[in-house]
């Protein structure tokens, strides 16, 4: 099977496992789900080091978008903490 297929299958299993685990732990904050899924995506992407340069560039682009979303969530949380909400 192609390395790309393995990558997608790994990512599906990891995100599925994380969502199931957080749900089992009673987590009710959607931002926590989102942040942990982003961290899982970045970790799995880093583990697949043998992608060709085009695939690597494309995935780096996706990582930048996800990281931007991650920073937005962190910024919102920081503002919440500073404003005492």
């Amino acid at each position, binding site marked *: 099977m192609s390395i790309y297929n393995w990558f997608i299958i790994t990512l599906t299993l990891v995100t599925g496992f994380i*969502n199931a685990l957080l749900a089992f732990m009673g987590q009710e904050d959607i931002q926590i789900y989102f942040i942990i899924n982003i961290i899982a995506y970045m970790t799995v992407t880093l583990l697949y080091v043998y992608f060709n340069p085009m695939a690597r560039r*494309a995935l780096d682009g996706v990582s930048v978008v996800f990281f931007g979303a991650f920073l937005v969530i962190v910024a919102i949380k920081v503002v919440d903490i500073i404003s005492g909400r």
Partner: protein
Amino acid sequence: MMRSLLNNPYRWLGLSLCVAGAVFSPLAFFIVASVPLTAVGLSAIMLGFVCAALANARPYISPEACQLMLKTGMENTSALLEELNLRNKAVYLPSLMREGRPQALIPLLEDADLMQIRQKLPGRLIVRYGANPDDMAIAVTTAGSINIDLLENNPGPTSGGIEDAVNYILTGVLDIASAVKISNQDGLIRAEITGARLPYENVWYQRCLGSPIASIVAAISSEALAKPVRIKEEIQAKGKISLVIEVLA
């Protein structure tokens, strides 16, 4: 336009996951009021983005066109080898012993002593590698020679360095194998390639130069060690190729 957009399975999967996630997440959040189900929808959107990104990394040229070009090159080299009646195993030379590109050397004599190759050889088709008038060989470019250009850095001279480079080319760039394991001991490089999708064929070209996968492993090993190498043994069974590569000089 729409057809070309959706004829790639990764793009199709990516689009489906994004649409499904975008529809499912608001429903789960506002109607079902379930955060875990909303997270599943968000994960589907993330996977959709990843699949769509991978779709752009697939080659523009069809696999059939690539196979056609590979076969054309192999048949031309085969014709040359048959015409010269050459049956000897090729020696893969690193780029520093050729003019900028690693190549394979097929000696004209059967019992040629190729241990004496140390100096840089001229970049011609027919080359003299020793002092005797009979020390002649033909130098050909193989699939492995071209693939060296695809490496971002020169491979390290350790078995780990060779394994990383071969894995990068075979599983990442060319996608013609699932995994590669390499060990280097006593002047012999042993490679185990699983999930190989370019099998060994008992044709003239591959009897001299090895299968395309073996050629790539030999060329990378030669380049990493900066020494000539020769494919000593190539065994294929159930999609697994076992190679023994002899390091010369």
